[in-house]
């Protein structure tokens, strides 16, 4: 454990000297938390029935019973942006891992590091946690701010209850960390092939595309996120995580790093 915590301390000491990383870790969660809160604020008075005329018909099927059309509209609009909480755990690790691994490559600091008695698993775990922990903390803090903000803004207890559906708790507490793990291991795989942190970051950012597809799919009314979908996504991401972790461990072998990572 001491070696893992040493790697985490080292990563944070290095990575958080980079302004771009700091701004991503701080401002992105704030921005993504602010968007649904702003939407909530501006749809606060939406009670007239005509506002609901633009909603996809399917949404009314999942709109919680007892809500007025205007309240349904508020839940609908805000729910669209809840997926932003799934982008935070994807984006932050991309940033941290890209700088941490490509930085090691360009500094040529991996060889002395690998010559120590640290195991591949310890090293990879340290690097993973160093990227995942800030992402998860930022996501959770953002969600806490969102909960407090919702509580202050929303007047109807039914709307508050609909927006704080257990589905979103599962999404933030379970799917979020799984997405962060996916993101960091994807970044490790990408970083093993490039020598510029910015390139690594840009290529690794591809990992957010599936979440964006879900985001736009929902806006287009193709489907709506529900508990079953969140659980299904969690299961899929969990399986993909295992595959990614397997590839990352293979790529992180000493010989592979020293002879193939260019």
């Amino acid at each position, binding site marked *: 454990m*001491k*070696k893992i915590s*040493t790697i985490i301390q080292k990563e944070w*000491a290095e990575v958080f000297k980079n302004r771009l990383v700091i701004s991503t870790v701080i401002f992105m969660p704030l921005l993504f938390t602010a968007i649904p809160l702003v939407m909530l604020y501006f749809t606060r008075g939406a009670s007239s029935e005509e506002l609901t005329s633009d909603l996809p018909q399917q949404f009314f099927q999942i709109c919680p019973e007892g809500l007025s059309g205007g309240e349904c509209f508020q839940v609908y609009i805000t729910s669209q942006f809840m997926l932003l909480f799934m982008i935070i755990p994807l984006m932050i690790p991309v940033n941290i891992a890209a700088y941490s691994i490509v930085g090691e490559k360009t500094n040529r600091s991996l*060889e*002395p590091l690998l010559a120590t008695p640290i195991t591949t698993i310890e090293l990879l775990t340290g690097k993973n946690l160093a990227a995942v922990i800030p992402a998860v903390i930022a996501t959770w803090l953002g969600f806490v701010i969102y909960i407090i903000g919702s509580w202050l803004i929303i007047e109807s207890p039914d709307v508050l209850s609909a927006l704080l559906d257990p589905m979103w708790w599962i999404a933030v507490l379970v799917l979020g960390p799984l997405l962060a793990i996916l993101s960091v291991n994807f970044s490790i795989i990408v970083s093993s092939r490039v020598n510029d942190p910015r390139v690594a970051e840009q290529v690794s950012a591809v990992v957010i595309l599936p979440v964006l597809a879900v985001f736009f799919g929902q806006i287009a009314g193709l489907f709506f996120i529900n508990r079953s979908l969140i659980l299904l996504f969690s299961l899929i991401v969990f399986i993909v995580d295992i595959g990614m972790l397997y590839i990352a461990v293979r790529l992180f072998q*000493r010989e592979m790093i*020293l002879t193939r990572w260019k």
Partner: protein
Amino acid sequence: MIITSRLTKIFSSGTDDGALAVDDLSFDVREGEVFGFLGPNGAGKTTTVRMLCSLIAPTSGTAIVNGFTLGKEDQQIRRTTGILTEIPGLYDNLSAEFNLRIYANLYEVKDVAGQVEKYLRLLGLWDRRHDEAGTFSKGMKQKLAIARALLHEPPLLFLDEPTSALDPEASRLVRDFIAELREEGRTIFLCTHNLDEADRLCDRVGVFKTRLLVVDTPTNLRSSVFGRKVVIHLVRADPQMASDIQAMPFIKEARVIDNKLLVTLDDPEIHNPEIVRQLVASGAEIQYIGELRHSLEDVYLQLVKNA
């Protein structure tokens, strides 16, 4: 400290038979010696060091490092060896002290603060301990990297080109420190292009070009490649003098160049008095006499050329 037997490394490219980097390497490094590993660029020196530090696995062959078997006891090998890589590979954004603390923890050093302070002081970096490593000169970075390799007090130290890219002053500092480490009884495996450095520091050298060409002391290598030569400076040299000396049974070759008589023989300590007596008897006036010393560079170039 190191015993290798038929150590071979082939890098597989996946498309052909692979590149042979190290071929059938068998040698030993004794406890407390400085062993110079010499060879041209691309000879496989760094690959050999990486294998011996259990960073990469050999394709075939065996090695025992510090009593531990390569491939079976790799963690123990890493615990008991220190390595200075060709490029220091420091964390430039972190302080010198933090750089060392990271490695002290990874090497499971018990007294982290004490060891870090010991080596920062020993290498004259204590006053700069809070400065980022990126602000250091090349020589200071190299010293910091050496400190990093020594934190866990390894009995065996691998130094890969420790003075390359350093100015003469910094090179000297590093060389002096290596000499001190030898005095402490540490075993040092020194990869270098600097043959003068190898000549000064190494007890034995191995000349290597994918395979090991020869291992011996620098002095023995000189005599085995070029033989031992004595230069006798005369007031006036006469070709007849060379003929007279050549006639002596222990002389391999004698020839006159300007006013110097160049004599090749096996054992000058024993035969020089006899040569001097012969020359004086034949009327030669000797100004002074000395051994012609080939540089290790001459020896190395000769060996590599013939490889």
